[in-house]
């Protein structure tokens, strides 16, 4: 048996205008978990796309199980035993679990009638479900499953295709802490059973806990490797960005003493029986921690008027606000940077300019007719101020990287006059460098007297960024933590409902 299962040797890939990969090598041993890290644009996706047959390398070779192979399509990769689990799940929620595991390869009976053999499908998928750590009946409709469970279904699907190497691209970006832990346990279990894993993630904490080896890419080149013993947060960051990241988190002037934005007795349509009350001061960043499903996003959507609250009062500067729609919230200066920037934050087919001015277009208009000069000026100013990396303001938003898309959403609100901004998972899927910039922007806003609310499932981020943390548990705020009380343990205790003394 050859020493390593997969070996990528001296891979070079050139796209028009860019050298995406320059002499990159990567090896993965049997049952080894290799974490692949790097900033967006470092070449991780290109490398994985070459492995998946989406792109062909210009130079270099791929050895799988000691043999030279050519991968021309996803089907080629699958037949070699390479399975992919993408950030966006490729499961169909109108089928049951077994149907998803065997999608496209359904066992059949009845000769030419090709009737689906449901019993066999269920029986066989049960085996793979168990191995992927999912203890549910194979007949469960997929729509009843949580994102984490859906991920397990994908893993089961890969296993059922006899995958010997599973590539996971940001698998935890939409998972909660406990779900992430379960996924990591599954990863360990896979490796114990001899299945190798390439694990791509921006969450360095996860990598520390599960990787046997870390490989970093930077600007399309190998930037270095760390063995399990050497892995540390600091070292990974410096490999990725090529320098030390001094202060990812910045502290500001601190909150002003008087309450500014007050929410009292808020009842959402999502959990009508629970009430939420909290307040945020000017200059304060209030973090909202909790498990996914605790009702944090629903709280934000109620305050912003997407799903109007059933009851409760919202006050700004002691004046009650009547918010029935996002329009009302925006008029009052209460803004939301939503969780799903590509579906609710941006109109991705529209240009950067159109997205930035979308909410405040009336301000660029005389007699309801848009003045192009004013609009262009506003968009330009925001692009400059936020240092949005884009070829120009007429570029479609879909062509920007995640971090820059998020900045466009933010630019939309900064072009108006924010009083309160709610960030819902602001750095999901964004690389370390861009994260630091978003944190800095949030802090700048707070220092300018804006009340900032940040919902985040990234424990490190909540602790690093917030001035105060509200922890939610099943639709209610289980408790508030002040800066000197911050710890992962304290947050977890409140999040799972074991009220600390």
């Amino acid at each position, binding site marked *: 048996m050859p020493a390593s299962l997969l070996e990528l040797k001296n891979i070079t890939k050139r796209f028009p205008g860019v050298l995406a990969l320059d002499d990159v090598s990567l090896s993965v041993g049997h049952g080894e978990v290799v974490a692949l890290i790097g900033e967006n644009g470092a070449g991780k996706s290109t490398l994985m796309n070459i492995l998946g047959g989406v792109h062909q390398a210009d130079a270099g070779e791929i050895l799988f199980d000691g043999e030279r192979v050519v991968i021309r399509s996803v089907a080629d990769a699958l037949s070699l035993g390479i399975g992919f689990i993408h950030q966006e799940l490729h499961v169909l929620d109108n089928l049951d679990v077994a149907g998803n595991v065997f999608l496209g390869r359904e066992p059949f009976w009845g000769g030419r009638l090709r009737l689906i053999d449901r019993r066999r499908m269920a029986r066989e998928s049960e085996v793979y479900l168990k191995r992927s750590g999912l203890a549910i009946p194979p007949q469960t409709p997929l729509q009843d499953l949580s994102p984490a469970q859906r991920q397990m279904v994908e893993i089961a699907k890969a296993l059922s295709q006899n995958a010997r190497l599973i590539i996971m691209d940001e698998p935890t970006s939409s998972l909660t802490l406990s779900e992430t832990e379960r996924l990591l346990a599954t990863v360990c279990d896979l490796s114990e059973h001899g299945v190798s894993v390439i694990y791509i993630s921006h969450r360095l904490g996860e990598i520390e806990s599960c990787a046997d080896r870390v490989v970093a890419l930077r600007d399309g080149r190998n930037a270095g490797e760390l063995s399990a013993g050497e892995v540390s947060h600091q070292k990974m960051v410096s490999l990725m960005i090529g320098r030390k990241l001094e202060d990812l988190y910045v502290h500001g002037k601190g909150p002003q003493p008087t309450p500014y934005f007050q929410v009292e007795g808020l009842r959402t349509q999502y959990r009508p029986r629970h009430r939420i009350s909290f307040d945020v001061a000017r200059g304060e960043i209030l973090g909202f921690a909790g498990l996914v499903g605790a009702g944090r996003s629903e709280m934000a959507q109620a305050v*912003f008027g*997407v799903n109007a609250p059933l009851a409760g009062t919202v006050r700004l500067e002691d004046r009650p606000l009547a918010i029935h*729609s*996002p*329009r009302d*919230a*925006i*008029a009052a200066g209460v803004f*939301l940077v*939503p969780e799903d920037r590509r*579906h*609710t*934050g*941006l*109109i*991705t*087919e*529209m240009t950067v300019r*159109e997205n930035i001015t*979308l*909410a405040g*277009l*009336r301000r660029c*208009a005389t007699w*309801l*007719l*848009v003045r192009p000069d004013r609009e262009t000026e506003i968009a330009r100013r925001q692009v400059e101020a936020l240092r949005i990396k884009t070829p120009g303001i007429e570029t479609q938003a879909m062509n920007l990287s995640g971090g820059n898309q998020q900045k466009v959403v933010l630019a*939309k609100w900064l072009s108006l006059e924010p009083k309160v901004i709610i960030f819902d998972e602001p750095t999901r899927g964004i690389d370390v460098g861009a994260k630091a910039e978003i944190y800095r922007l949030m802090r700048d806003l707070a220092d300018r007297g804006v009340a900032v609310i940040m919902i985040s499932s990234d424990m490190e981020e909540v602790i690093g960024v917030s001035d105060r943390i509200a922890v939610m548990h099943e639709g209610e705020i289980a408790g508030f933590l002040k800066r000197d009380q911050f710890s992962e343990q304290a947050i977890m205790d409140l999040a799972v409902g074991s009220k600390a003394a």
Partner: protein
Amino acid sequence: MKKELGITMLLIVLCGTTAMLNHRFLGAANLQNMARLIGMYGIFSIGLGLVIITGGIDLSVGSVFALQGVVLAILLREWHWHWVIAVLASLAGVMALGLFHGLMVARVRMQPFIVTLCGLLFYRGLARYIAHDETKGFGTGGFGMLRELATGNLGPLPMPFVVLIVVAIVAYVVLHRSVYGRHLYAVGRNEEAARYSGIDSRRVILSAYVLSMLLTGVSGVLIAFYTNSISPANHGSFYELYGIAAAVLGGCSLRGGEGSILGIVIGTALLQVLQNLVNLLGIESSLNFAVMGAVIFFGVLVDQALRARRAQKT
């Protein structure tokens, strides 16, 4: 303008070929008649285009023409209303139908295809019932000003064409220059994100259906006086499909969020030139629809290929 380039070329080529094959194409009478038809079809096609840009559709247009025509004939000939009041009443009625469609789509969240398909059936039936399935006409004289406005000329230009130019200019400014126009595109592209940016998407959608029906109503009056008699069973039938075809040829996507006024007008012109070509070149008239279907098909196919190429270049 770049986006309309493909279809403009197609229009020019078609005009050139027809003119070469039959010199009557460029005759004053033929051009005038074509301009009149382009005017009548263009006005409601622009309305339909607005709805299509929001991601909707309106299949009821043809039946609305029948219903409006029958009612207008009754108001004028049997109830002897003053023509100004009769026309305004018919426009108001048609807009009320648009309001109903809009409410069903934007508030009740029914699919536009279904709402307006039911409209297509219902209004046609209603028109035939009201008219006792008999042809209603406006006679040979009378309604002086109205008849002149609907069927006369302004200088060399037929009135419907003049109306189209006015409507197109207003629609152009509204769609491409105003806040409302931007909101229309935004809602068509991504209604959810538009709402998160403070756009009242329901009101935008609702208004598109009402505006569309207003333009349909204006076209309806012109068409009624052009045919001068309304046979409720087939007056205006299939017209919605001409409108949809014109919008699609002009660059509207049925998924919403795309399209331009210029494109829709050129699309309408293209369809009428085609129609004219079939007549002038002595092509068997039973092939009429087949020719149109084929040209629309290839027009859209080529346009899509051109777009894909352009997208690759940038």
